[in-house]
């Protein structure tokens, strides 16, 4: 493994100041550490942000839940506040990886990495999340730019993710049996004036399926999903599932999610 300089930042300002074009912020390290070990990434500086207290915690306020960037998956999964306000979000967190990953991995790390098969990006899209950073607020739709790509700038740190509490929501996924990443995951959320159908695992980046969202906005029932045609064009095709299979699963999971809402 290539060596680096390890820094433990005491606050966001210090972390941002230490960052450069050859640094990475370290929270749970569930992706960063394996990437370094496998030689997929190398950095001159690793800036540990786990010790920054203001970045962790869960706050509910009327219409939204704000989750600090370094809040661990296990904390979201077990949170009484999350279970009460957005039960599907606690279920999603409980389904990530394995217990040791959930004891260590963080929500901010998951969305900053924007793995095309990660679970949390779909929650951000479905629940109209706002990503709070140390310099601005970014709407989820504008945050996820492409495969492993976000709109975060160099030195920008995610501080919290604020989710809108929907009227109803549900998350369905087919987990890869080894990694528990989503082969396909569909997060349906019915808000007061709209429905979002966020899909992960199917394409190179999480997306809101506008056709399903439109159909469900006018008729929130599983039969409304039947009339929508899902094209396999642009769907991932690999040893786990073909594009056609994934396209079909989007529909199957959208129906299951609506029925479970």
């Amino acid at each position, binding site marked *: *493994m*290539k*060596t*680096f*300089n*390890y820094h*433990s930042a005491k606050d966001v300002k210090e972390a941002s100041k230490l960052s450069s074009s050859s640094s990475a912020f*370290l929270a749970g*390290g*569930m992706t960063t*550490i*394996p990437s*370094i*070990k*496998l030689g997929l990434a190398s950095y001159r500086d*690793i800036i*540990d942000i*786990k010790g920054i207290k203001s970045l962790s915690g869960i706050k509910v306020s009327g219409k939204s839940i704000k989750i600090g960037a370094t809040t661990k998956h*296990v904390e979201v999964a077990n949170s009484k506040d999350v279970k009460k306000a957005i039960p599907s979000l606690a279920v999603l967190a409980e389904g990530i*990886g*394995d*217990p*040791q*990953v959930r*004891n*260590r991995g963080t929500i901010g790390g998951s969305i900053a990495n924007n793995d095309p098969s990660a679970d949390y990006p779909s929650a951000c899209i479905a629940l109209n999340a706002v990503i709070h950073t140390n310099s601005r607020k970014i709407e989820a739709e504008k945050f996820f730019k492409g495969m492993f790509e976000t709109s975060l700038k160099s030195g920008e740190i995610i501080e919290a993710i604020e989710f809108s509490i929907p009227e109803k929501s549900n998350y369905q996924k087919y987990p890869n049996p*080894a*990694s*528990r990443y989503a082969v396909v995951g569909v997060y349906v959320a019915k808000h007061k004036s709209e429905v979002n159908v966020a899909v992960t695992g199917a394409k190179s980046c999480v997306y809101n399926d506008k056709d399903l969202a439109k159909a469900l906005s006018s008729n929130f029932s599983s039969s409304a999903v039947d009339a929508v045609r899902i094209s396999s064009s642009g769907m991932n095709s690999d040893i786990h599932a073909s594009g056609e299979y994934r396209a079909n699963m989007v529909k199957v999971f959208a129906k299951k999610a609506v029925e479970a809402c």
Partner: protein
Amino acid sequence: MKKISAEVNGKKITKEVPDHTLLSVFLRDILNLTGTHVGCDTSQCGACVVHVDGKSIKSCTAFAADVNGSRITTIEGITKNGKMHPMQEAFKKLHGLQCGFCTPGMVMSAIDLLQNNKKPSDVEIREWLEGNICRCTGYQNIVAAVKEAASKM
């Protein structure tokens, strides 16, 4: 180099190590605690599971520097006065191991399960051990051992 101060198996230690030292390397090569095994070294197999501040984590996917100041427990730290931990006793009694390579991680992970859930069902045990891979036993006796330990702890 980074100075690491931690409490390992109840003993306070301080060591200076290169910044990129993995926790698994720190435990095995520097502290000579070779009970923690490294299997896949890619955070999938779970042979390297230890407890950091009471919670199970995979030591191959943490740096010694990022657990600085923590309380660490390895498989060597769960015996008391030379007497096996009830989880170890149960694995021995019910043949929850064959080659034994995955066992330290299985035991540490299973102890964490019982901290969260005192009476887990078979399904809950299997779901919890998702991140621990055994290539010998077929898991039946591991599940039986965890249930046995749950009744004794």
